[in-house]
């Protein structure tokens, strides 16, 4: 049997509607993701990309088909799959340090007090948040909050990092900053990353492959694009790179010609 890392096989998601009918959000999704690969999932809003991510995270159940990580079926949430939520989801009554500590403590209960503190501090450092270590989420900027979210997710040593439009709520400069951050971290600690996004540049810049979803209902994978650009990538130089331009155009044409969506 072929060794697969993360595999989505004939995944459907059906929501029951109040009127007794059903809404098929996602249909027949098949996707294989390799270890240490960065994959973006892009599509118009309502295409079920967040639903797909939630199913991989185990926050949502699969209606039919299956999701397998290391050949084991995903049945619920687990610390092998960490999630970075769109709205950071930090607990506002805990400091930056305590928010990360909460996760590490739960996933690695065997750590001693000093080991725990060292591990948390390592991840606070990784996202350059040492000065904000003892601040509450209400006292730091949106970009910093999202960095804490990333640090918290990485701190539990996940096999897959799932990011649900992680930078969607941020202004474009902060977003660029965080993308750089993420790429730097990815250079030092290899992770398998799945990023949900609706930003074409972000998708091409970050990923090895871009998965393009058709519009819902019954959304599915339309095309998968290989991004043949070496890491580390430089966003300024990329602007003139023919491969970058080709990828951008391929996604643009998919989203705005083949599967254009009218404003509702």
């Amino acid at each position, binding site marked *: 049997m072929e060794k697969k890392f993360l595999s989505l096989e004939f995944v459907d998601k059906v929501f029951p509607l109040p009127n007794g009918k059903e809404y098929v959000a996602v249909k027949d999704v098949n996707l294989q993701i390799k270890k240490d690969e960065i994959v973006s999932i892009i599509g118009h809003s309502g295409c079920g990309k967040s639903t797909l991510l939630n199913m991989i*995270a*185990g*926050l949502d159940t699969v209606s039919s088909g299956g999701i397998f990580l290391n050949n084991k079926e995903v049945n*619920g*949430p*687990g*610390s092998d*799959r*960490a*999630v970075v*939520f769109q*709205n950071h*989801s930090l*607990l*506002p*009554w805990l400091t930056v340090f305590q928010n990360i500590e*909460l*996760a590490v403590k*739960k*996933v690695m209960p065997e750590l001693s007090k000093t080991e725990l503190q060292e591990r948390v501090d390592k991840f606070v450092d990784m996202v350059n948040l040492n000065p904000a270590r003892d601040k*509450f989420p*209400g*006292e730091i900027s949106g970009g910093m909050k999202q960095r804490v979210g990333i640090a918290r997710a990485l701190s*539990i040593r996940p096999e897959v990092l799932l990011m649900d439009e992680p930078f969607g709520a941020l202004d474009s400069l902060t977003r660029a900053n965080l993308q750089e951050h993420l790429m730097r971290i990815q250079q030092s600690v290899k992770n398998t990353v799945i990023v949900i996004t609706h930003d074409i540049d972000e998708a091409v810049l970050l990923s090895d492959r871009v998965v393009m979803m058709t519009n819902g209902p019954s959304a599915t994978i339309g095309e998968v694009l290989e991004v043949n650009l070496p890491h580390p990538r430089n966003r300024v130089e990329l602007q003139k790179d023919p491969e970058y331009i080709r990828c951008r155009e391929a996604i643009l044409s998919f989203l705005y010609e083949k599967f254009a969506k009218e404003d509702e």
Partner: protein
Amino acid sequence: MNTNSLKNIVLPAIIFFIIIAIWSTIAQNVQNFPTPSDTYIHAFGGEDSLGDEVEGVLSDPFYIENEDDKGIFWQVISSLERVFAGFILAIIVGVPVGLAIGMSKNFQIALEPYIQIFKPVSPLAWLPLLLFVFQDINATAISTIFVTSIWPIIINTSLGVKSVSVDYMNVAKVLQFTPLEKIRKIILPVAVPYIFTGMRLSLGIAWLVIVAAEMLTGGIGIGFWIWDEYNNLNYFNIIIGIIIVGLVGFLLDIIMGKIADFFDYRKRV
């Protein structure tokens, strides 16, 4: 002194004089109605308008003549004891019930109608039944406070639990918290400010209820004291009693507010 703190003194002072003016007008027109100055004398002692030497209610609030005749301080204390006994019972039962309703749709469906039915029932309606059951002043007063002050605790606790955002619950899911960890680390921090709001409302109700309850049950306590003064035709003391009840209630509310702020993470940042 800046204009704001000046305002804080001057504006209430204006209202104070208006109240005294209205009070004086009423006193002039209603026979035997206590005047402001005589009420003051009866509170702090001195010679009243009839030329009688009066020992004020507040000039010796700590006296104990016998079990049935004690100073006003002891009256208030014994009322507060009953209030807190009923209030604490209401917390012990109300918070867990509120948590259950907030976390389980089934609990909510099961209990919601009864909460809506019993919540508006006046303490005066419960009192005869509870007096018949307990045949005891203290138990009756405490249980009356319990059944009337538990509702805001239940309702606000469940509201607090329901206000926990899906995002926080997702964090709990991803980290695979046990139900107990979920309550302790996610739900309680969010719900505690709501619970304290409920407790603050509940304590206010408890203090309202005790006066009425003691009037009917008798014994020692500020409520019965006011009723007793009515029977003794001491109308001055009724007004003094009202002011004391008001001040104590105000003080309780301030203390509960401070405690609530202390436990509210939103006030710490």
